[in-house]
């Protein structure tokens, strides 16, 4: 390998300065490893632990990233949400500075396994007007939509869920579309395909833990040796803390057995509850064991 690289070095010295600047952006150097988030074509993952392990310190922009994950609901979406928020924030900043933004902060979700739930995304801080959802059951439709969205350059990120096998040429087309449009592409596939070759420069395998943590195995990445395993707390679910887990489990199982339903710490506000709060004050509301049950005519 070193033989192939060395003749190129003396040539680089004679290049005009403009060309050197150009290549600075396009060429990846092994020296620029994780932790340094200076690379312009990277978006922060929102997890310091993960940023450290990725080239340039984040998800590569204008590239295809493969996320291999079996099952739904182990924190795989929570892994991507901070990056989408970062993209939206970057878009807002660009909007404030120049009055315009590159990708509009838009993100497209194609062929998602279930419906994205608007209240949860809103609570996470997402701007829902920038989220476009595309229902697609056929893999070829999903790939076509992804390719169109990536190549148009109108979107900042594209997330695609595909369960079946994908032809190598299709993957290359996705990668090419991502590169030409400058958008980030996350491809979600079952772990079965981990052993298949892929043109994606970053591939990771996800595994859920009982503690709610997410084990990430970086099976392919730029610049650093592969097969690095890191553990992240991607979701902030209070019920999933390790210490609280045991006692809570016991308590609930007990209660269920006894047929008692306990109140959650913050019951949803109802017209009745709002009215009570306004009339008697919040203190009275907390003191009385209010059941969050609205007025029912049959009672």
């Amino acid at each position, binding site marked *: 390998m070193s033989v192939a690289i060395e003749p190129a070095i003396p040539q680089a010295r004679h290049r005009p300065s403009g060309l050197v600047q150009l290549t600075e952006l396009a060429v990846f150097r092994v020296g620029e490893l994780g932790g340094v988030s200076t690379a312009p074509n990277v978006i922060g993952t929102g997890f310091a632990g993960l940023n450290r392990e990725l080239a340039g310190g984040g998800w590569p922009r204008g590239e295809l990233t493969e996320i291999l994950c079996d099952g739904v*609901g*182990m*924190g*795989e979406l*929570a892994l991507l*949400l901070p990056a989408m928020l970062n993209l939206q924030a970057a878009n807002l900043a660009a909007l404030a500075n120049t*009055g*315009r*933004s590159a990708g*509009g902060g*838009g993100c497209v979700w194609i062929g*998602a396994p*279930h*419906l*994205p*739930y*608007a*209240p949860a*995304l809103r*609570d996470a801080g997402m701007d*829902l*007007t920038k*989220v*476009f*959802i595309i*229902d*697609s059951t056929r893999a070829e*439709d999903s790939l076509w*939509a992804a390719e*169109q*969205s990536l190549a*148009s*350059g*109108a*979107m900042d990120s594209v997330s695609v869920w595909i369960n079946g096998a994908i032809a190598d040429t299709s993957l290359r087309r996705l990668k090419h579309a991502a590169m030409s449009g400058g958008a980030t592409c996350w491809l979600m596939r079952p772990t079965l395909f981990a052993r298949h070759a892929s043109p994606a420069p970053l591939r990771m395998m996800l*595994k*859920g833990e*009982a503690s*709610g943590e997410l084990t990430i195995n970086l099976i392919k990445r730029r610049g650093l040796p592969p097969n690095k395993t890191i553990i992240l707390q991607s*979701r902030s*679910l209070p*019920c*999933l803390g390790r210490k609280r887990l045991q006692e*809570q*489990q016991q308590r*609930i*199982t007990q209660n*269920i057995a006894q047929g008692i*339903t*306990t*109140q*959650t710490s*913050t*019951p*949803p506000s*109802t017209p009745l509850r709002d009215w009570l709060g306004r009339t008697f004050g919040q203190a009275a509301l907390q003191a009385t064991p209010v059941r969050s*049950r*609205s007025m*029912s*005519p049959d009672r």
Partner: protein
Amino acid sequence: MLWIALHFPQLSIDCVMRGHGESLLSNLPLAIHTGASQRPTLHALNTAAREAGLKPGMALAAARAICGTLTAIPRSVAKEEECLQRLAIQLAQYTPSVSVDAVSQSIVLEVASSMKLFGGIAALLGEVRRTVRSQGYQGLVGIAPTPLAAQLLARATQYHPATRMCRDATQLTERLADVPLALFGWSYDTLNTLATLGLTRIKDLTPMPRRGLQQRFGDSVLNDLDRARGLLGDPRLYISLPERFSSNREFVFEVHESERLMPVADGLFQEMEGFLRARGAATQTVVVTLKHARNAHTHITLGTREPARHAGHWLRLLREKFARAELAAPVIEMALRVEQLRPYLAETHSLLRNAVSTRQDSAANLVDRLAARLGEKAVYQIEVESDHRPEFAWRKQTGAGLTQWPPVRQRQSRLNGGQARSSTKMPTINRPTWILREPRALVGMNDIPQYHGALTLLAGPERIETGWWDGKPVARDYFVAQNPQHEVCWIYRDYRFGRKWYLHGLFA
């Protein structure tokens, strides 16, 4: 004043040929016949027919004897006039002053006022020529300070094939000197008499005493001469643009493949774009109708999020529609209709040249393309609704208004600032990021719900009981649960109706 005149010597053949694109009819001899039905004669011929040795004026029977594969179509003057009218409407994008002269089969455009907008007469002429050619017409061009002179120069190019242009009114008489008098629409008697007197060109007639000319030939000869030279006013009746747009292309043969329809559709969309440009409008809905010989018509409705008029964009949408479905039957006619016009919102370009402006507008175009192929319902956005029932706490948003950048809602919330955001902030209840389209009933073993294995309850219950007023009541205890695969689920027990367990969401 500066006029561009377009003369169409091949109008009757172009009207038939243009619907078929280049490849379909070009090597097939085709003739338009006219005259009495007992003895029809050839009126116009395409190149293939002329190469076969046919000549205009030949009897149809004789022509068939020479060329057995000849396709002969009777001439329709009404259709030719309609074609001219449609072309004039399309040309109205370059100037509002467009006039059709059906008798001499020409169109005149007054361009002095719009020349600067299009970057000079050469650029404008290029645009006009491109439009005419893209519609399948062969037009001859003449440019002069008076409309009649422009028409004469255009027709004179038939004899001397070069663009005749005269922009200076003082040179007009000199330029017109060699134009044959036969190009004026005078009566045969007048022209014959002039010819016997040895007067065949304009330069022969101008030194003649006016009084004598008037006595011999009446006012029309003198008036036409004066109009051509700009000595007498020549008001023209300009076309008025219709409120709606509709156009069609008939095929001489049945078309079987949708790919063959694309060049035709391109022509139709360009015609539509010209009309919309002339009206300063755009549209959100275009109906393409395919007529079949026996089957019922196929209607294809194309829609966009934002008013659009660019022919290429509409063509791409139609291509996506065709990519999804085969033609139901061979097509004999293709029609295009625009019912509602919307004001065109011009895109504002940044003073600083960056790649951004082209990316911005493609967001709406992208959604159009996706929706055209995958269906209107397959592309949507989600919104939060204020309802306690989880399945009603959100809403799908499809169709128009999907990509208003930035959307109205967002603009309002930005005006309100952070205040609006904090007031709408829900209490910190964790909601799952995925919700199932329909709650899935879970099998319970010994009262322990199962989803990919036995579920362990982690948190809950959160009781939601509401909705009695609109007939969709819920009475549920929600729990957060985890299965052996470590998937975190949002499940509920319907505590009033049957005490069954359901899976409703997943904390991904």
